[in-house]
C-alpha cells in the first residue's frame, strides 16, 4: 500500500473520466474532483482507511508528494472533499476525522497569515507537528505490513512434534522467596501484637469521626490511592474503621471512586 505511488493517480483527475461507482449497492453518479482514487475501488477504500492519518497519507502518496513537503492547501481541500463524501454516503464517520479537519484548517490559516519578520526564525513551520505525526504513523503502518509478511507459525513454518509415550506428569514444588517468608512473619508479628494490645487499650474509633478525618485528607482535584487511606499502623481495628468510614462516604455520595479496570488500584477523590 505505501509504495503505490503509481503514476496513474494523476490521470484519474481528468474530469469526465469518472464512471459511476457503486457504494453499498447504491450507484454514485458524481464524485468530487481531485479524488485520486480508482472509482471502482471506492467502496473498498472508504472502509479501508484506518483513520484520518491513513487517509492523509493516502492522499499524499497518491500524488507522489513528499511528506516533508506537504502542500497544505491542496491536501486540506481534498481531505475536506473526502470527509464530505463520507458524510454524504452516510458512512459512519469517526469523530477523529472531524478533529483532523479542524487541525488542517488551522494549519492552513497559519500558513496564510503573514508572520512578523523578527519572529520568522523562531517560529516553527506550522506543518511540523502534522508532518511528525504522519511520519510516525507511517512507520507503524509499514511495520504492520512487514509483520504480516513475516513467516508465521502454522502458515509458513510448522513445529515438529512426535507422540510421546505415556508418562505420569511430575509435580513441582512451589518456590518460596526469603522475602515472602519475612513478609509472612512480619504480618504474624503485627497481628500478634495487635491481639495483645487489643484488650489493654481499647481505642474509641467511631466511624463518624473517621469519616470526617478521611474527607479532610481528600481533595476534589487529585485522586488519592485507596491504600493510602488505610493506615496499617493502626492495626486491624483501625483499618476496619477507616474502611467502614469510606463505605459510608461512598453511600452518601460524598466521594468519587475510580478504578480503571478490574483489579486495578482504586482511587478516590472528594466530590467537588
Amino acid at each position, binding site marked *: 500500500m505505501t509504495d503505490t505511488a503509481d503514476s496513474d493517480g494523476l490521470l484519474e483527475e481528468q474530469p469526465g473520466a469518472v464512471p459511476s461507482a457503486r457504494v453499498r449497492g447504491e450507484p454514485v453518479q458524481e464524485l468530487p474532483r481531485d479524488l485520486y482514487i480508482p472509482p471502482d475501488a471506492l467502496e473498498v477504500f472508504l472502509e479501508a482507511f484506518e483513520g484520518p492519518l491513513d487517509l492523509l497519507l493516502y492522499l499524499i502518496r497518491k500524488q507522489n508528494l513528499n511528506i516533508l513537503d506537504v502542500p497544505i492547501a491542496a491536501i486540506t481541500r481534498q481531505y475536506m472533499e473526502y470527509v464530505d463524501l463520507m458524510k454524504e454516503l452516510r458512512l459512519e464517520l469517526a469523530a477523529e476525522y472531524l478533529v483532523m479537519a479542524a487541525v488542517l484548517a488551522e494549519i492552513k490559516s497559519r500558513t496564510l497569515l503573514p508572520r512578523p519578520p523578527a519572529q520568522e526564525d523562531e517560529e516553527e513551520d506550522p506543518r511540523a507537528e502534522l508532518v511528525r505525526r504522519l511520519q510516525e504513523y507511517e512507520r507503524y503502518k509499514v511495520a504492520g505490513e512487514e509483520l504480516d509478511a513475516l513467516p508465521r507459525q502454522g502458515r509458513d513454518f510448522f513445529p*515438529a*512434534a512426535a507422540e*510421546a509415550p505415556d*508418562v505420569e*506428569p511430575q509435580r*513441582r514444588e512451589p518456590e518460596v522467596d526469603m522475602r515472602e517468608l519475612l*513478609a*509472612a512473619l512480619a504480618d504474624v508479628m503485627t497481628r500478634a501484637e495487635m491481639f495483645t494490645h487489643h484488650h489493654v487499650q481499647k481505642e474509641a474509633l467511631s466511624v463518624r469521626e473517621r469519616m470526617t478525618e478521611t474527607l479532610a485528607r481528600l481533595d476534589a482535584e487529585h485522586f488519592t490511592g485507596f491504600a493510602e487511606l488505610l493506615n496499617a499502623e493502626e492495626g486491624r481495628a483501625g483499618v476496619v474503621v477507616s474502611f467502614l468510614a469510606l463505605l459510608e462516604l461512598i453511600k452518601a455520595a460524598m466521594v468519587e471512586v475510580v478504578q480503571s479496570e478490574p*483489579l486495578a488500584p482504586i482511587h478516590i477523590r472528594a466530590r467537588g
Partner: protein
Amino acid sequence: MAAPPLKHIVEAALLAAGGPLSLDHLQTLFDQNNVPDKAGLRAALAELDKEYEGRGIELKALASGYQIQVRTELAPWLSRLWEEKPQRYSRALLETLAIIAYRQPVTRGEIEEIRGVSVNTNIMRTLQERGWVRSVGHRDVPGRPAMYGTTRQFLDYFNLASLDELPSLLELRDLDDIHPELDLKFPEEADASAATPDAEPRDE
C-alpha cells in the same frame, strides 16, 4: 525448485501433523500430477524406519496410520516435561514456617497462639514432606506435644549457612514498616512477574 525427496516430505508431514497419517491421507498432500503411489510411500516409510534405528524416535504403524513416536525408553526424561505448574504456598503455611524458623523449637499449640488461629494439619504435613520442618522432640508438659524445628534442607534452600543468618527481628521491624508499601503493588504486576517467565532475561 526441485521437489524434495519423498521421504523428507513424508517425515515432515508426520512431524507437522503430530498424529497418525494414513497412506491415503499422505497422498492427498501432493499435486494431482505428482501423487506418489502407495508402494512408493511404503518404501519412503521403510527408509525412515531404518534411519530411526538407534535413535530416540521410531516409526509406528497404528490402526489409523503411521506415526512418529518417542521411544518408551526415553520416558524417564520426558516425565518432567509436563510438570504441573507449581502451586503457591498459602499465607498460613508461610507464617507457620516463619514462626518455626524463628521460634524453634516450637509446638503446634505455640504456633497457634502466635498466629491467633488453629494450624491446619495439612500445613504441618506439607512442611515435613518438603523436608523443611521436622519434629525435634517433645515438650515436657501434659500431652507431650511435639516440638518442631527447621532442617538443613531448609537452610540449603534459602541459601543460609546457619540459622544465625536469618534476618534479625530488628530488620523485620523495617520490613514491617515498608510492608504497607509492598501491598500497594498492582496485582497484575506481581502476578505477571511470578507467573510468566517472559519477564525474565533470556539465557541465550
